[in-house]
């Protein structure tokens, strides 16, 4: 793990009308680190994910990638910079095929004049999408099947596979083990370890605390829009983590806050 953080937010806040969703939130993830992000419903996890992925612009605060301040105007900007996000509730277009989803927004065009006219190299994408998903190592459905025909687990596999195969710096996984059976959830944790080994910064959001304790290096606890704890995973048990999330255990303010 290097000293300078790979991806960092400093003092970001976001309000929706009179509702303060994020209040002066700071966090960092290093290359080759898995950061767990936990919090009760309404703690601000999804808003934070949207700020990190470029889907929402925070009202104030800074976002830094490799120490350089960045301002995401759209998810496109963050994707271009190597930040992949798996949103909760599957960010797939269910009428499109598996391969079309894997390559959505990054379509491969045909060579020559046809490509210049915008025509797709669908066969190439079908083959490559299959290889990408196989490399990730989770249930691989046929490339040309519409996502709507897949099981919940297969859909999640496609979404994770897409995020992992495109991520160059940071991968944000919002509840990736939702809708999955025990065996598939284990596979997802394995995918997270592989992403860490590749040197990616991983932000892993989950309600399943044993998963958080099993795979993360550090845990940030959000409560009512604020970071209430930021500590190495080894300092938590399921009970103390749960206590911090619910507010039964009042943690000392994280250093630097």
């Amino acid at each position, binding site marked *: 793990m290097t000293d300078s953080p790979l991806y960092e937010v400093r003092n970001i806040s976001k309000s929706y009308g009179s509702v303060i969703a994020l209040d002066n939130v700071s966090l960092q993830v290093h290359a080759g680190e898995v950061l767990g992000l936990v919090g009760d419903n309404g703690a601000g996890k999804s808003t934070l994910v949207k700020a990190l992925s470029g*889907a929402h612009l925070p009202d104030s605060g800074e976002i830094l990638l490799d120490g350089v301040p960045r301002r995401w105007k759209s998810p496109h900007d963050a994707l271009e910079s190597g930040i992949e996000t798996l949103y909760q509730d599957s*960010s797939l277009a*269910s009428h499109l095929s598996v391969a079309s989803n894997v390559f959505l927004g990054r379509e491969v065009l045909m060579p020559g004049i046809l490509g210049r006219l915008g025509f797709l190299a669908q066969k190439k994408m079908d083959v490559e999408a299959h290889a990408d998903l196989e490399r990730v190592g989770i249930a*691989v459905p*046929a490339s040309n099947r519409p996502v709507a025909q897949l099981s919940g687990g297969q859909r999640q596999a496609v979404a994770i596979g897409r995020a992992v195969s495109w991520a160059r710096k940071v991968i944000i996984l919002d509840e990736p083990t939702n809708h999955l059976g025990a065996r*598939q959830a284990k596979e997802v944790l394995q995918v997270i370890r592989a992403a860490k080994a590749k040197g990616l910064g991983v932000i892993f959001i989950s309600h399943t605390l044993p998963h958080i304790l099993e795979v993360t290096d550090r845990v940030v606890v959000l409560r009512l829009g604020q970071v209430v704890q930021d500590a190495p995973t080894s300092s938590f048990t399921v009970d103390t983590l749960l206590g911090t999330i619910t507010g039964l255990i009042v943690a000392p303010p994280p250093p630097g806050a």
Partner: protein
Amino acid sequence: MPTNQETHSPETEHSGSPGHKSPPSVTARLAPIFSNQQTILLLVLVGMVILFSVLNPVFFSTDVFGNILLDWGPIALIAVAETFVVISGGIDLSVGATLGFSGVMAAYAMQAMTGAGLPDALTILLGTLAASAVGIGVGLINSLLINRAHLVPFIATLATLGAAGGMSIVLTGGAPIGNGPPSAIALSVPWLGPLSWPGIVVVVIVVITGLYLHKSRFGRYTYAIGSNPFAALAAGINVKRQITKIYALSGFLSGLAGMFLYLRLASGAPTSGAGNELDAIAAVVIGGVALSGGVGRMSGTVLGSLILATVTSGLIIIGVEPNWKQVVVAILIAAAVSLQALRSKGRTS
């Protein structure tokens, strides 16, 4: 080349369909191009032609088919426009009014050019450009209302329907605008079997737009936005720009439809196109395009619009009161949509 990925893909215990492990048959490969719904539509169309021909043998002639295709041309163009819009999850109610408005504006332009002594060919070419430009203009206004003013497409295009339709009447005082290039009307005489020059242009446009819908990135983004707008945005697609392009395309095709009608009537009539948005929507719905977005094929729209044009002419030729057309179309829409509902139910169960 690995052409069949299914055979070596490890399926999980959750995958419920063992049937897709065998290599895809020829029909399975053709399925995306010519799905079940399209086969049914083709049978309905052929059945109608046979029925009308039996009831009145006059129906089965190049003349009648030529007329059907002349009726079909402008409806096909706005139905193609509607196909893109509806697949993207929107709706364009302004296609009919835009057809009429761009026809009128092109008629004014061509009247002036003919008065100035320009050759007919050049006048018609410039008139076509004028009609297209007016159509694109309406389309861009639609996209501004949707993207910037955050109106839902139904309301945005209802507004431009009213504006374009009203302006056509105000400008012309309700009278058709003629005195254009004298040889214009000759263009609409069928010469290639039942096809006229404008008809050939429509066929070419249908083929090109069909390829773009199904084989290009533009088409892919259209489906993606209709299927899941958030997924499209999260994948880095510029959704607003794509929506702008789709409504501009819709306006462009509606403008061309206005020019098509001008060539047929040798004048731009302000009320032409009024109500045609319902024909366009009927054509795409019969053709299997889902109003909820993300679903539909160009071949369905072509068959849907051909069925509409055939019903209209056929009922007249067999001597049925023409207003029965509305009833027949209504039945076709209900049948097509319930068929889709039944099929999608069968797929998910």
